[in-house]
C-alpha cells in the first residue's frame, strides 16, 4: 500500500513540497489572490493570519510582504499568525498559540498592533469535525465570526477579509451578515480545493462598518454579544427567548478561482 498511497497524493501536495510550503493550502491563497489580487497591493502593510498552523499561508504572506522590499518598507510591515497548535517560526511572522474564539486572544492581537490598523485579515480555520453536521457548521461559523470580530476592531476601511467556509445548511445566513460589513462578498472556490469537498472561501472586499457602530472588545463578551449592538439582524439579545422566526438569508455570488491551466485536485494520475 505504501507506494500507492504516496502516488495518490495529488499534484498540489508535490508542488507544495517542491516550493517549500508547509501545506498544499498555500495554493488556495495564491489562487484566490490570482483572482482578487488582494496581496498584490504595494500598500499592504499589516496582516493577520488566523488559524494559521502549520503556516503555509503565513509563508505566502511573508514572501509577498518581505521579498524584494526595502528595509524601510519592512519596518512598517507586520504579520501576526495565530493557532491553537504550536507553529515553527517563519521569517517576519509573529506567532501566537491561542484560541481565536477567546476574547482574551483578540485582545492580545490588538495589543501587538498597538494603534495601527491592519490591511488584510484572513482565517483558514477548520475545527475538529465531529460528524454532527449542524454543530460542525456552527463551530466553523463561530471561527469566522471570531475572525470577523477581530477584523472589525482592526481592519482599516476598505480592507479585505478572507475566510474559509463550508457551504452547509446555514451558509446563506452568514452571507447576509457579512453583507452588512463589506461592499462586496463573494464565495470563491480555488481549483486547488477539492471539488468533492464543501470547502470554499468567503472573500469580503471593501470593509465598511456601519457608521453608528463602534466595535468594543470586552473580554467578558462572547462574539454574539459583541455584535449585538451592530445591526447584524439575528444577533439581538433580549430578556426573552425569541419565538421562532426565519432569519435573513442571502446567496453570495459564486466564483471559481485559478486559471484553466490550474490542476484539478480531484484527478488522480
Amino acid at each position, binding site marked *: 500500500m505504501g507506494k500507492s498511497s504516496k502516488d495518490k497524493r495529488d499534484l498540489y501536495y508535490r508542488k507544495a513540497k517542491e516550493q517549500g510550503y508547509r501545506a498544499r493550502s498555500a495554493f488556495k491563497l495564491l489562487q484566490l489572490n490570482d483572482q482578487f489580487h488582494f496581496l498584490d497591493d504595494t500598500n499592504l502593510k499589516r496582516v493577520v493570519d488566523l488559524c494559521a498552523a502549520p503556516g503555509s499561508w503565513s509563508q505566502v504572506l511573508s514572501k509577498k510582504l518581505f521579498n524584494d522590499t526595502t528595509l524601510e518598507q519592512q519596518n512598517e510591515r507586520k504579520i501576526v499568525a495565530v493557532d491553537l497548535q504550536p507553529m515553527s517560526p517563519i521569517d517576519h511572522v509573529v506567532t501566537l498559540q491561542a484560541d481565536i474564539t477567546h476574547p482574551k486572544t483578540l485582545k492580545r492581537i490588538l495589543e501587538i498592533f498597538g494603534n495601527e490598523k491592519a490591511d488584510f485579515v484572513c482565517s483558514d480555520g477548520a475545527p475538529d469535525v465531529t460528524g454532527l453536521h449542524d454543530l460542525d457548521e456552527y463551530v466553523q461559523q463561530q471561527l469566522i465570526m471570531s475572525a470577523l470580530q477581530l477584523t472589525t476592531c482592526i481592519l482599516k476601511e476598505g480592507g479585505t477579509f478572507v475566510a474559509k467556509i463550508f457551504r*452547509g445548511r446555514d451558509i446563506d445566513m452568514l452571507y447576509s451578515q457579512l453583507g452588512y460589513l463589506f461592499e462586496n462578498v463573494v464565495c470563491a472556490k480555488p481549483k486547488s480545493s477539492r471539488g468533492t469537498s464543501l470547502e470554499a472561501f468567503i472573500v469580503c472586499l471593501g470593509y465598511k462598518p456601519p457608521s453608528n457602530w463602534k466595535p468594543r472588545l470586552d473580554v467578558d463578551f462572547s462574539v454574539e454579544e459583541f455584535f449585538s449592538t451592530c445591526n447584524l439582524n439575528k444577533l439581538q439579545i*433580549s430578556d426573552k427567548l425569541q419565538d421562532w422566526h426565519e432569519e435573513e438569508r442571502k446567496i453570495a455570488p459564486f466564483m471559481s478561482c485559478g486559471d484553466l491551466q490550474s490542476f*484539478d485536485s480531484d484527478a488522480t494520475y
Partner: protein
Amino acid sequence: MAETCMKELSHYGPSLCVKFYKNYVVSGYGPFIQIYDYHDNGKLIHKSKMFRKNKIHGLSVSSEGKLLVFGSRSVSVVDLDDDLINNDENVDAIRFEKLNSEWIINGEFSANGKFIYLLTSYNKVLICDLIGNVVSEKVLPGERSILYSGSIKVLSNDKVLINAGTVMGGVLIWDLSTESKIHNLLGHEGSIFHVTVSDNGELVASCSDDRSIRIWDIKLGKELCIGWGHTARIWNLKFFSNGTKLVSVSEDSTCRIWDLRSNNNETFELRLSQVHEAHLIKNVWGVDIQEEENLAVTSGNDGRIKLIDIKDYGDPSNEISFSMDDISEKSVIKFNKEEIIKGFHQFKFGLIAITSLGKIIKFDFETEVWQLISVYDKFVSYSSTNAIVKHNIIIFSNNKCDLLLLKFSSDGHDITVKQELHLDELSKTNNCLVEEFNEESLLVCLESPNPRDKFICLQINNETLTIVEKYSFTKPENFVSSCLEVFQHYILVGSRFATIAIFDKRNVDKSAYIIKRLNHGDTTTNIAYVECNEHQSHLFSVTNRDGYYNFISINFPSDCNGSITYKVIHSNKIMKGFLEGAFFNDKGEYITYGFKSSLFYIYNETHCYEIASQVCGGAHRQWKLFPCDSDEEEETQFTLIYIKASRLHLKRINKLSVPETLESGLHGREIRDVTILKEKSYNDEYIFCTGSEDTTLKLGQFNTVTGKVTNHWTERKHVSGLQRCKFISEKLMISSSAREELLLWEINDEFQSGPYITIRQTLPTSSDNPDLRIMDFDTIFLTNGLDFIVSTVYSDSGVKIWYYDHAKNIFKLLIEGRYSTVCILNTSLEIFRNQVWLFIATTDGQLITYNITDYIPFAVSKEEKSRLVAQSVMNEEIIGLPLPIGTMVVHQSGIKTMNIFQDDNNLKIYTGGDDNAIGIIVFKYDQTKGTIEGNITSFEKNAGSSTITSCVVFNHGKNLLSTSVDQIVRIWTVEDDILRLSEQKYTTCADTGAADIVTDKNDSNKLLIGGVGLSIWES
C-alpha cells in the same frame, strides 16, 4: 410560489439523545421527539416535531414530568404527558419552539422544577422560566471561549455546577450562583467532548479528543484515574449505580460499561467491564441507563435506538459448567483419569452425553442430577452424537460402522426403545449426519473415508427405530459430507469446497446432482429449506464456514428423468469470522451464528447487530447451539453447550425481555446514492437500494402510504465508499465506487421471504492495485433486454465503453480513452435521432458530447428506438475514444449531477453544479450537418445556497426535483425549457446528496431523499 404540497412521509436518520422515562424511551430523532413503550414490544406511542429545522441534541425531564428539549439554538419546554404522550400524534408541538442567539450546549431544570438553565456555547448560563422569559444570566468572567461540550449539574436550589469543556483541553467547573471558578481541570489533550458530574456532586468524568476518560475529585480538583479502551473519540458519559459505574458511547460504534473502584478512597481505578457493539459505523451519540431493569439505551448516527441488557453480560448465573470430577461428585459415576466427554445433545428434559470410554450419562434439568445410563464398549474413543429432539431420539455412531439409537420417554426417565445396528457395506465410518425425514421417520447418513465406498442413507422409523429403507448412493468425487437437509425425495448433502450434492432417493443408481464451488469455498456448514415460490422454485439458505452465505433457488424435475436446475440468487459475506449456520427467525429476520476467533456469536444479519456472544475456546472446540421453543414463555432463547479446557459448559442465552431495537436504523454514514426499482412493485411496496460512504449497499423496500422502510440485506462487497448505484432494468443494478469497483447485481423478487440480490459480474480493473474512482456510469440496452453497453468515467479523466454479454456473462471493452486531465463526474449514453451519443461532465463545469455511433458494433434498432441491435462482428480490438463533437462550459465549478430527458424533438440535459446553479441545455439535431448542437436555455444561478447534489426529472419532463447541501428540496416547473421554482421544503437529512422518484399506481410521486439519513416524501 405555488401552494406547498410536498409532504414528508417518513424520516430515518441520526438520533442524538435518548432517555428512559417511566415505561418509555424518549428519543430525540432529528427534529422529532419519538416515544416508545419498550415493554409493549417497543411500540412507537408518540411522535411530535419539536423544531422546524434544528435537530434535538439533548433533553431533560423534570420531576413534574416537564420535558425540556434543546438543539442548536432552539429550545422547547412541554408537558410530557399532557402535551405529548396523552395527545394525538402530530400535535402542534412546534409552537413551543423558542430561539436563543447562541448555540445551546446543555439544558436542565432547576431543583424545584420552576426554571430552566441553559448553557450556551460561549459559557453563559441563561436562567429562564418555563415560558422562556430570561430571569437572569450568569457567566464566568474571563472565560468566554467556545465550548464543544458542557453540562449543568443541579445539586439543590442553590447549588448548581456548570461543567464546561473547552477546545484547549481544560475542563472548567464553576459555581452558578457565585459565578466563580471552582477548578480548571487540566490533563486532557485536545477538545473536550463531554463532561458530567456524579449525583452526589463529588466526581467529574470527562472525555476528549485523546480518547481517554478521566475521573476527577471535585473537592480536591485532582485527577483520580484514567480509563482507556475506546478506539475513537468518546461522545457521551454517564455515571450510574451511585457513582460506582460509568457508561460511555463513542465514535468506535460501541457502548462500554466501566467500574470505578477505589482502594480505601486512596487509589482509584476505572476498569472496563463490558463492550457492546451497538451501532453501525461509526458514531453513537446518546445513552441512558435504567438501573432497576439493568438496561442501557443508546442512539446513533445510523438512526438506530438500541436496548442493551447490561446485567446478562457475563452473568455467571446463566452458565453452569462441569469438570469430570464435578459430574462424578454429583453422581456415583466413576470416571477414568483420562476420560472425557466426546459428544452431547440437549433434550427438553436434559442433556445426554457420551464419554471417551463409552459411558452414556444424563443430566436432568429439573433435578440437576447426573446419572449413568449405560456403558457401550463399542463407542470407546471415536464416536459422534446426533439426535432428533422432537422424538427424544439420540443416535451414537462410531468409526466401525456401529450405530446405537435410543429413544427416551418425554420426561427422560426411561429408555423406551433401544436399537443397535451394524453396517456391513462400509469398511469404516468417519461421518454420521442425522435429519428428520418425514412424519414417521428420520434419516441417518453414513460416510466412509474410502472414496469408492457408497454413501449410505438409512431411513429409520421414529417409533421402532428399525430401518425402513436403505439407500446406497455413489459418492461424488472429492466429497466429504458436512451437513444435511432432506426435501421431498431429495437428500441434500453439504460438503467441503463449498459444494452440495443432491441425491434422489427414488433413483439410487443415478449419480448425485452437484452444485459446485459456490464460492472460493471452505466447508458447507448448513443447508436449510426456506420456501417455494409460484414457479415451483425451492429456496435454500446455505452457509459456508469461510463466512459466505448463499440463497439457492432449486427447481426439481417433475419426473425422475428430468434434471435439477439451480440458481444462486443471493450471495454475501458476513462481517468477519467463521459462519456455522443461519436461519430466519419468527420475524423473518436472518440470524447467523459462528465464531470470531475464540468468540461464539449470534448476529441479526437483517438489521446488522450482535444478539449475543460468548468466549468459548480455541480451534478444536466442541460445541452445539440449541434453539429453544419460541412459542413457550421461555426466557431462554438458545443454549450454547461447549467444552472448554475439558469442562462442559451450558450457557443460557436469554431473550431480552424488551425488544433488541426500537428503531433498527439504516446506514451509519452518509448515503451517497439511492435508486428505486420502478418497473414493478413488490408486495405493493417498492424495492430500493442505498449506497453509502460506509461502503455498504442496503436493499430494502418502502411502503408508499406510510413511508415505512423494511431492511433486507446489507451488501459488503465494495471495499471503498460508494459513488453511485442505479437500477438499470427490472432485474439488474450497477454500483460503483473508488478502487475502480463496478459491480453488476441481479435482483430476484420472486420469493416472499424478501427480495434477493447477488453479484452477476464485476467490471475488470485496469491494474491489480487500482486507485481510480469510477465516478459514474450509464447504459443502453440491446433489444433482448439483457445485453447492454455501459459507459464508465474515471477520476483521471478516463472514459470507457463496454459491452456486457448476458449469455456469456462477460464485460468486453470496446472504447477507451481520456478526455483531458480533469476528473469526470457524470456520464450519460443516449440514443437520439438514430445515433448514439455519449455525454460527460467534469469538475471544471464542462459538458462534452461525443458521437459514438460509428465506433460501436451496434446500430439503433428500427423497432425499438431506444435500444441497440448487434450490427457488425465483434472485434477483439479496442477502439480509441473519438474526438468530442462539442464542448461547452456550463458551470463555474464541478457538474455534480446530470439528468437527461428527451421529448419528440429535443434532448435536454439538466445539470446541477457545485456553483449552486442548475442549467438546462437543449440539444437540437442539425439535419444538414448531421450532428447535434446544445444551447443553454436556462441557467438558474442561485438554485441553491450551496452545491446542487442531484437533479431528477419527473412528470414527463414537466418537473425537476433538486437537492442541495443547503438541505432544501426544491421542485421546479419546466416550461419552454425555463426553470421556475414551484416549491421548496427543508429536509432533515444533512449533507443531502441523492434523490430518486417513483410514480406509484395512484399516480402519486414518491421521493426518496438521501444524505445523513433517508426521508421519503410524497408530491
